């Protein structure tokens, strides 16, 4: 069999950790090959090796059967390898075309950039693969899903035959995921080969041909997707059985913890995105918010946590008005927040894990006394949390930046849940986590609930919302348009409610 890419017995070490230990992956032409593994298993590292960002200590890479030494991303591009990173690398103030040609600009005879030629070429590529990208749009004006397509175009424009996707669906909404999957299929129809990193087994089952599994840096094996099932994949990856259905008792909600009345919040463009929202969450229940991205969920959370001012309305926590207080006052009155964007809000990437663990508590005893930090206490706490939450890191002194995406997320969750706040807000908490970690996080959320805390869960994953919530609030156009019981609904019905249509017999009455 002819392989387009072969990575044979690759080994890559980082200080204190072997990220890739003798891993082999072989990619056939025209296939979609999944790369599956727990958080920190070494997937991104392996792909960064292939893309020339890291040099392996051992092993061999072959492109179309020929041994190659990929010393830089430019070399990878020359060999027809392109990569779509999880965190996009685009210039916000440039147009799509400008971003795509950056570093590879077509020239006119006079030496100036031939932007018209570039635009035409990009339009052609976009049409051919069904990407529907506007070459003249500014990056800052287009959605995350569109930005991802610009990244795809960037690789195609550079002549990529092999495309690497690192968790492309983690940042997308369900609708965008559907579209991406169509794009992936059309890419392979045109003869491209794809390596896809994802934690979502459903996606692997849907589009992939083969799947290579790695566990703790070691290659476990490669299976044909047609001959396997999600349960088997999960247990291969984690090394034990994984429970997909979260076990939980019936909720015993008590008094109101959070009460929101007639809330209005503007977004950064000064347009109301939350428009007269009412919501309450009681002690001992998990309320899930279902909604299509952009219907005011982020603004709602930011206003509860004090990161954004509410224009009008009242937010009460334990019967105390907390509307428009400072983030610190709100945190201190008992709110924890797992933010949606972990790199922007959740972590100071240049701080160590230990320093990040005390991000909201550093000024309190025992982490500091008379304004002087006690690093021993700080790192002790961090040691405890990384054990409890299985954060895989060489040490608590390692910079947050060096952790794998999923392990960064686990550190944040550990920090927020450990404070055991009266109201825990979890926004896309399991984004980028492996199935084992998701199971664990869900358990933790339910544990908090059983301790009598209120939990607000926002997620685009309807599975997650249906599995974990005790009540589901559907958000549409800045309002809660329906409250439904997860036992009595399903994805179809939720989908319709989220699109703004009314369903008979449902409504605000439920659960209030």
């Amino acid at each position: 069999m002819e392989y387009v890419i072969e990575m044979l017995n690759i080994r890559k070490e980082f200080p204190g950790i072997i990220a890739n230990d003798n891993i082999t992956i072989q990619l056939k032409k025209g296939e979609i090959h999944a790369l599956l593994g727990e958080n920190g298993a070494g997937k991104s590292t392996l792909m960064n090796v292939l893309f020339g960002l890291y040099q392996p200590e051992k092993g061999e890479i072959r492109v179309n059967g020929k041994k190659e030494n990929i010393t830089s991303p430019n070399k990878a591009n020359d060999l027809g390898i392109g990569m779509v990173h999880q965190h996009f690398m685009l210039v916000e103030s440039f147009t799509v075309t400008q971003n795509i040609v950056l570093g590879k600009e077509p020239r006119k005879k006079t030496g100036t950039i031939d932007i018209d030629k570039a635009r035409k070429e990009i339009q052609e590529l976009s049409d051919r693969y069904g990407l529907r990208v506007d070459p003249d749009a500014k990056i800052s004006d287009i959605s995350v899903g569109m930005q991802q397509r610009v990244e795809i175009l960037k690789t195609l424009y550079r002549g990529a035959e092999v495309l690497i996707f690192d968790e492309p669906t983690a940042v997308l909404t369900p609708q965008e995921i559907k579209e991406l999957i169509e794009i992936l299929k059309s890419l392979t129809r045109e003869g491209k080969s794809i390596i896809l990193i994802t934690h979502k087994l459903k996606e692997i089952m849907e589009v992939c041909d083969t799947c290579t599994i790695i566990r703790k840096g070691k290659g476990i094996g490669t299976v044909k997707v047609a001959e396997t099932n999600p349960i088997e994949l999960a247990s291969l990856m984690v090394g034990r059985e994984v429970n997909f259905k979260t076990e939980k008792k019936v909720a015993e909600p008590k008094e109101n913890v959070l009460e929101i009345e007639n809330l209005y919040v503007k977004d950064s463009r000064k347009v109301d995105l939350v428009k007269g929202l009412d919501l309450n969450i009681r002690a001992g229940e998990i309320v899930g918010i279902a909604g299509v991205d952009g219907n005011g969920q982020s603004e709602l959370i930011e206003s509860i946590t004090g990161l954004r001012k509410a224009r009008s309305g009242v937010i009460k926590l334990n019967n105390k008005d907390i509307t428009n207080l400072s983030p610190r006052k709100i945190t201190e009155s008992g709110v924890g927040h797992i933010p949606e964007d972990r790199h922007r809000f959740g972590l100071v990437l240049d701080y160590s894990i230990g320093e990040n663990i005390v991000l909201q508590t550093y000024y309190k005893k025992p982490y500091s006394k008379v304004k002087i930090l006690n690093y021993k206490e700080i790192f002790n706490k961090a040691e405890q949390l990384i054990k409890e939450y299985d954060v895989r890191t060489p040490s608590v002194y390692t910079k947050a930046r060096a952790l794998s995406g999923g392990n960064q997320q686990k550190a944040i969750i550990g920090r927020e849940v450990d404070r055991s706040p009266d109201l825990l807000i979890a926004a896309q908490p399991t984004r980028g986590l492996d199935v084992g970690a998701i199971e664990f996080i869900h358990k933790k959320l339910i544990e908090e609930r059983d301790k009598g805390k209120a939990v607000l869960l926002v997620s685009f994953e309807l599975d997650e919302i249906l599995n974990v919530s005790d009540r589901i609030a559907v958000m549409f156009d800045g309002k809660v348009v329906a409250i439904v019981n997860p036992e009595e609904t399903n994805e179809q019905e939720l989908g319709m409610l989220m699109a703004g249509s009314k369903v008979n017999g449902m409504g605000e009455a439920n659960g209030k």
Partner: protein
Amino acid sequence: MANKRLITFLIPIISVILGLIAGAIIMLVSGYNPIVGYTALWNGAFGDSYTIGETVRRTTPYILTGLSIAFAFRSGLFNIGAEGQVIVGWLAAIWVGLAVDAPMIIHLPLAILASVAAGALWSFVPGILKAKLGVHEVIVTIMMNYIALFSANEIIRSVLTDGATTTEPISATASLASPWLQSITFYSRMHYGILIALFAAVIMWFIIERTTLGYELKAVGYNKHASKYAGMNVSKNIVLTMVISGGFAGLAGAMEGLGTYGTISVMSGNINIGFDGIAVALLGANNPFAVVFAAFLFGALKEGAGEMPTGAGVPTELVDIIIALIIFFVASSYIIRWALLRFKKGEK
């Protein structure tokens, strides 16, 4: 990790060496003997106890302006206004030195504090404008430099003197001059200020690395959004950073006023201690102790430069070129870092 540290440590040193080599080449090309030139530079900086004393004297304010800029930089702020803060600090110290009558134990600390307060006040303005209105601190601090220069000149002429260009010397009770240090350095102008400057480096290290304030300042410098999320008051931190940074620079003014000169004179233009501090902070990679070494290097180069025309016939401007080259190499540290990593790979 250890490797990265080592590289961070090596970069300034390699930059200095490269700067000196490039300077030698320039001397050769312009027809001077670099060995004679550098010997003169060395003698000018460390030739005898007098020049050593003068080198230390020059180093003292550089340490403080270097710390000032490094401190602001750790929080992501660019304090171009150290120059003006030095001037107001100098002026305030002299003013107190002249106007107050008190025993040394009160008078000297008072004059020093006045310089710190003046520098802090001067940087409070750009700080508050940045925090409240988002006005970029670089623009405001540059403007404040001119305001400081011309106001100080006017005050010297019409308040501190009757139209003269230099004030009376301050009273001995406010002076940092040290007859003992002078006597062991053959009557250089070396003064006790060096101890204050070294102590200030320790203070900065302590604030940045050990206090909750330092934790907040660094967090704001690294990631404003996460700091806000964590409940830190970003505006307050901006103002506080600027104020502390200005305090260090103001103190540098006291070194000149209370230590070296004992007077203040009308200035025709920039005194450059503040601007050179930017280079010192850059060379010291914003680390307080490295800043001390960088300041010492600058002090030595500037002091030694004086000997180059007489000792070797080389114009002093050449030293400015060497300093500029060193900064150039530090600024292009990326290339050095890359070369070092390459070199290490090759070894393996």
